[in-house]
């Protein structure tokens, strides 16, 4: 696939060329949306919205990583979807203490108060990971999805979320720490090779 030629044709309004690009990237884009939103239907809708938006604004693509540009588009589509979801009452991402301050410890992410039904849903490792991802603050989640799930390097992630490299490093480190804490609540699901060490005091 000659990506540059397809992008050029798509910029000239060629929908067939853009559809070839979609076929190449739709799995990545969908998975990104799925991991950010944690819901298959919403992820599919956001993916479609992202591709429509990408085609309409492809003339603004000025070179560089096309994947990063697409990821930025789908991230924006996910943020829009989450803003729509916000109108519905949801569990706050950062629970407050009795004094009204944000809790410092991310231990709550393990969610020990999960109901048996919720436990059953999180029985598989993937569900456990998604559960922990869902509970990350959005800016952490986006960075960890781009870097660790999509395998993008720091500069690409920086281009996607448009924050400095130092901020990317910081967010990624904190996101990994929070995920580690959360995943300790699902220790029995983790494969032996990935079993997290108990007692390390991060």
């Amino acid at each position, binding site marked *: 696939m000659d990506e540059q030629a397809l992008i050029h044709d798509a910029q000239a*309004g060629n*929908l067939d060329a*853009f*559809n070839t690009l*979609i*076929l190449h990237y*739709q*799995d*990545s*884009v*969908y*998975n990104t949306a*799925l*991991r950010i939103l944690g819901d*298959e239907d919403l992820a*599919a809708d956001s*993916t*479609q919205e992202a*591709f*429509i938006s990408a*085609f*309409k604004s492809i003339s603004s693509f000025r070179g560089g990583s096309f994947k990063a540009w697409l990821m930025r588009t789908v991230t924006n589509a996910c943020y829009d979807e989450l803003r729509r979801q916000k109108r519905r009452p949801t569990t706050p991402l950062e629970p407050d203490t009795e004094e009204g301050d944000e809790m410092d410890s991310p231990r709550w992410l393990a969610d020990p108060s999960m109901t048996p039904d919720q436990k059953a849903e999180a029985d598989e*490792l*993937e569900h456990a*990971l998604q559960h922990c991802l869902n509970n990350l603050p959005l800016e952490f989640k986006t960075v*960890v999805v781009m*870097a*660790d*799930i999509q*395998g993008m390097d*720091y500069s690409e992630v920086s281009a996607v979320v448009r924050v400095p490299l130092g901020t990317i*490093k*910081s967010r*990624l*480190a*904190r996101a*990994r*720490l929070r*995920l*580690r804490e959360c*995943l300790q609540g699902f220790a029995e699901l*983790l494969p032996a*090779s*990935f*079993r*997290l*060490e108990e*007692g*390390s*005091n*991060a």
Partner: protein
Amino acid sequence: MNRRDLELLSSYLDGQLKPSDSARLESRLSSDPNLRAVLEDLRATRGLLRQLPMRKAPRDFRLTPKMVRKNPPLPPAYPAFRFVTALATLLLFFSVGLNFLVPQMAQQRNFGYGGGGAPEIFSAQAPAATEASATEAPAAEAPAEEAAPELAPLPTATLSIQDNAREAVTPLAKEGVTGEAGGLDQYDVQNAPAGQEETPPVPPRWQILLAGIALLSAFIMVLMRRISANRWRSK
């Protein structure tokens, strides 16, 4: 574990540290089991995330023209017809406006100059002068004199017209003197309009032509759009 160490470990894991920072951290790791444990935890967490299965897209996300509301591609000649339609319409409106305004302005000017006696006198005199010059002037001078009212390039021609006009006016003035006062005005009012049908600045046949061009061009545009839309839909 402080935030700085956490960031160092995370960046070290991804090979994003400078060699000097990396060497320093490795030295600390060799002597600090807690630091090593956190590094391994972070590595395991990253490994788990990388192990997440890549889901296949649940449907085909390719776009249809309807999804992006893309208009059918129009023929290259379309903009030319659009320009012609716009220009013809503009000229048509301009000519209609001109034909409407010019007579009114002339009328206002006539009222302003007290019934427009002077211009009508001149207009009444001009044909007489031309006739006089045509009959009295030598044959060699005739072309110059005929051209004079339009071009007025030569002082001699202008002079001859003025002289001839004076001669032509004289009998009229004499009639005015012998007749009742204001006879000249009376002559003008009675004769000038009869001899001068008011012609609009833009002839009607030009307006009809402009309207025809605008309509035809617009019709061709509509036709082009329909043909393009049909071809686009059948794709």
